[in-house]
């Protein structure tokens, strides 16, 4: 069964009094445990689709089911709670909270879960170990390199064991070596944990690391390609 079902999904914005159809009757299914790259030119609707999948934005019309939940039926606070349980989100610019240490950043989403301090600690340490940054747990974001910051951000996204890992150009701000390290990490998560990953990227080489590539053009599905 598909984890994500988009049926005739539309998202319109008004820009200068004119309606812009960012997503135009998009139909798309994403399987549980799959690894999908979303590609397309600027303005094709990739990030908008990712935001809809994360419950960050709302569709104008159409239906979006994630793990059986119709996101349109949830109010703002219900969506927030749903995100905290089902979504791990990785930003292009990491977006770690600058005043918190790596450990505290990773612990942050767990503060919303009813866990004991010991369980929280175990999970944070495990997440930091999975991105090879256990030794940097006390560092503030400004004391980390870009690649390390992104790995902490990934640990933060994973620590709640989300149903869905969403990444918006996660390697867009990294050099090739760090980008490869992040992609290796995503590949390992997918293979070893069966993590469902949806990743927006502009980079063909990065997209090839996914199982399949979904291409959008003008808000419509242009193609779906399996990895070669």
């Amino acid at each position, binding site marked *: 069964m598909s984890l994500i079902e988009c049926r005739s999904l539309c998202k319109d914005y008004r820009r200068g009094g004119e309606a812009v159809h960012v997503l135009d009757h998009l139909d798309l299914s994403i399987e549980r445990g799959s690894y999908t790259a979303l590609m397309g030119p600027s303005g094709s609707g990739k990030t908008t689709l990712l935001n809809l999948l994360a419950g960050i934005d709302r569709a104008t019309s159409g239906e979006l089911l994630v793990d059986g939940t119709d996101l349109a039926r949830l109010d703002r606070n219900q969506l927030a709670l749903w995100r905290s349980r089902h979504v791990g989100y990785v930003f292009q610019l990491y977006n770690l909270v600058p005043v*918190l240490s790596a450990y505290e950043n990773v612990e942050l989403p767990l503060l*919303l879960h009813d866990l004991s301090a010991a369980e929280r600690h175990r999970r944070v340490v495990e997440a930091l170990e999975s991105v090879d940054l256990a030794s940097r747990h006390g560092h503030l974001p400004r004391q980390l390199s870009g690649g390390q910051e992104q790995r902490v951000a990934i640990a933060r996204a994973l620590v709640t064991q989300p149903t869905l890992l969403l990444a918006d150009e996660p390697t867009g701000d990294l050099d090739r070596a760090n980008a490869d390290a992040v992609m290796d990490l995503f590949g390992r998560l997918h293979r070893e944990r069966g993590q469902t990953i949806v990743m927006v990227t502009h980079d063909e080489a990065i997209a090839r690391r996914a199982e399949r590539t979904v291409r959008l053009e003008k808000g419509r599905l242009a193609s779906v390609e399996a990895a070669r």
Partner: protein
Amino acid sequence: MSALMTRIRYALRSARRQRLRTVALVGGVALTTALAAAIACIDLGVRDATTTRAGETRLIVYRENRFCPFASALPQRYDRQIAELPGVAAVVPVKIVVSNCRASLDVVTFRGVPVEDLRAMAPRLAAGSLDAWAGHGNGALVGRELAARRGLRVGSSLTAAGIDVVVDGILESDDPQWRNSALTHLAFLQERAARGGTGGIVTQFDVTVSDPARLEEVARAIDERFKADEAPTATRPQTAFVARAARDVVALAGFSSLIGIGAVLAAFGLLATTMVNVTRHRSREFAVLRTLGFTDGGISAIVLAEGALVGAFGGLLGAGLAWLGLSRAGLAFTMEGVSITPRLDPSIFILASACALVAGLLATAIPAWTASRARLVDLLRGAS
């Protein structure tokens, strides 16, 4: 862990890591709270000293149309004639010499009183002995606040207004006039003040009436009695006398209250503006928190918790500073020989701390609401 504790914990971490900002905000709130509490204590002191109360029994007899201890001269023999009037319970002739007749924060007021009259009043002494003072011609019983201000102890010497005395005791009293005076033997002060001249002249009479209801009646009777005499008198209840004598201090206290209110409002405005700017600056952080699953209420709670923490810490610190400063300084506003001292009422400090907490919450109410209502997708556009 409760949801509220999570927000408070996050706010604490954030405040701890933004040390400079936190110290500046807490410091600002602390100084404002200290200022407001100090002004409130002074205001309370002014009210205590100048508001006529129902049970008041003390009258001050002064020379008519004289407004300074240097100018008020009454024959000491008036005491017997006043004592004979109906409704008078006690009369104490008092000679007053001050080091400065104008408004000042450090005036030494000598009050010369007859030994037997002071014995009859059974004053409370924090240190020293009444007998030692009684047997010591140039001895003085120094009020607690004057002693604190001048660093005086039993055995210390005090020189002011050309008069030298030795401290024989530290006086405790509910009356701020006594807490800020040096009580000497009447004859000694008369002799020193007259610079070798004759005694028999006093500055005022402190009259106690037997029935508070007869206060005005007795005052009128005294003034009537001496109306045609060589030294006509003006008799007022003690609080009214203080209010008249210290009118400039009362006016200054009123003005300082206005300044204090202005300062509090300005500080609140600055705090609110700072919190608005801080929250705007942190919109990206809040967008990330909301992406992680923090609800609107959760974001509001974080902002409010930071405001409350700043208000609570600043308020407690400010109240503590005000308490410490006022209790150590022995502050007294003295004018024309009467003193007004701040009253350190614990309720003022509790109220000031509570107001700082509420101000912290109010200052962050709008930023908290704004932070929680912003569209997440718009915030993230700026963040990603």
